[in-house]
């Protein structure tokens, strides 16, 4: 057994255990932590494939920023509140999810068992990724020459999303509050506002919260 397989087996099992934890744990914080484990497992696999930049970005962006924000939101909303799982917000999505899952699993198994380890048998179309620093340079070059349009469009899209989020969160009393300074304060303020303005609504909210 080569080192590559050993690394793959260890990192792969971390990924799978983490993924199962993400789905199966009851506590949302534990779910988020399992997700981090999965992301780290994937980062290790990236490194084993000599994609150092991808691994670093995986950890910085996903583990370091996105899941931290997940946890942040979970903490602010409070993890004691449990969602009522009996109500399906989108009708019929559960049976559809089961069908899709079975179909995908069947497809993957068919490919693995019947066709073999490769699907098309084609070599990578982009050529030799290079090792270490060379790999990073190649990625940067491709990103800023051939795919520069896609890159710029993504940047604009993200900027629009940020501006939109700021616009949505700035309303009424919230105009005076900086969301970056006091994240979550607006929701709190809105709640107290509701309480003073509309008693019945506040009561129903209180019932829901408990």
């Amino acid at each position, binding site marked *: 057994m080569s080192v590559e397989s050993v690394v793959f087996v260890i990192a792969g099992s971390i990924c799978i255990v983490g993924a199962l934890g993400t789905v199966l744990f009851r506590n949302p914080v534990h779910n988020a932590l399992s997700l981090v484990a999965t992301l780290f497992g994937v980062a290790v696999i990236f490194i084993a494939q000599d994609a150092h930049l991808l691994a670093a970005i995986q950890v910085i962006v996903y583990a370091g920023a996105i899941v*931290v924000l997940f*946890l942040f939101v979970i*903490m602010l909303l409070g993890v004691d509140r449990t969602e009522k799982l009996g109500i399906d917000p989108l009708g019929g999505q559960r049976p559809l999810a089961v069908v899709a899952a079975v179909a995908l699993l069947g497809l993957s198994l068919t490919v693995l068992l019947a066709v073999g380890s490769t699907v098309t048998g084609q070599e990578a179309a982009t050529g030799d990724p290079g090792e270490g620093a060379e790999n990073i340079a190649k990625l940067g070059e491709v990103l800023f020459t051939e795919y520069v349009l896609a890159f710029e469009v993504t940047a604009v899209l993200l900027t629009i999303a940020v501006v939109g989020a700021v616009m949505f969160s700035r309303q009424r009393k919230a105009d*005076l509050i900086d969301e970056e300074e006091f994240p979550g304060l607006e929701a709190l303020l809105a709640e107290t506002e509701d309480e003073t303005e509309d008693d019945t609504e506040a009561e129903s909210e209180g019932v829901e919260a408990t």
Partner: protein
Amino acid sequence: MTPLVDPLLSGPIGLQEILVVVFKVVVAFAFLMVAVMFMVWFERKLIGDMQNRIGPNRAGPWGILQTLADGVKLFFKEDLLPDNADRFVFKLAPYLALIPAFLIFTVVPVGGNYSTGDGTVSLFGEETLLQVADPPVGVLFVLAMSSVAVYGVMLAGWSSGSKYPLLGSVRATAQMISYEAALSLSVLSVILLSGTLSTSGIVAEQSQWNWNLWLTGFIPFAIFLISGTAELNRPPFDLVEAEQELVGGFHTEYSAVRFALFFLAEFMNTVTMSAIIVTLFLGGPNGPMFGPEWLQSWVLPSLWFFLKLFVFLFVFVWFRATLPRFRYDQLMDMGWKLLIPAALGWFLILAGIQVASDNDDINLALVVIVGVAIFFAGMGLLMLAMRSSRRQRQLSGVTD
């Protein structure tokens, strides 16, 4: 059997390579532990001096063994686990804080002659760099680990199951995420000028007194120092554990060894952050070279490195002794409205200068002058806009 001990998949590896790696890991770990012990003592002693006190003076000469005594005491104290705590996460959090602090140090070159040589030294008959690991993405690794360090603080506060730690950790997370942006953007300037992501490459680029400190024009250095201090949660940015408001912040519920681990992580982070500043901006182990070969390859570079490191350790203590704590809104204002725009703008100017210096048709001096003028004009306009918005807020009844 050989492939099993081949961590880099680069062919057969003998005993020498393994010895080198083990030696480097042990030395780095031991150094970091000693440095942390020294730093704790140094901080207490220096702050004592600055506040006209004596400081620790009982354990050993000048009280230098005080940290050891405190460590032993903490090991023998009762280890409390709050009833409301999430047991697994509560136990996990201190390690999540400590491990990234150590891992960052592994990519810092602590010696090696880069000025007249290629930075390698001979160890067990192997030519090797004086750093535990030299990944091609060294700087990104540092940023990744510093963003992972947020988890320790965050989960410690949450898992304690008590309100002050939770508030402290929410504050800490918001602060660390905000300042990480400014930190990364100031590192970008260094990467742009060095043209490499590896730490040894960045040090090698600064080998002829062309340190990034003046090459990048001081501003990225200032931004890095400020946001680094905020990232470390050290005064004047220690709102995370503001005693008057939050009892002890995220580690209120921690005691004994687990508290000691947080304490260790905090000081280890201070040492590694200083080492990163030295590496990125002050040329790492580069400095004047003279004397025989052994002096040049082993002694002098490490000496320069540790001298520079010491300067920054002193600066961090100095900050703590002189500056009063920021208010939370001031902290966020500075991070988002001053440091991030300044870092971004300066990065654009450096990119422009880089293009101009690569191209002979463009007048370099003109580009520099115009760029800097635009930068300061832009920052001035931003300040003006912020002042008028603050005045408007004051007029509408919210005092600032």
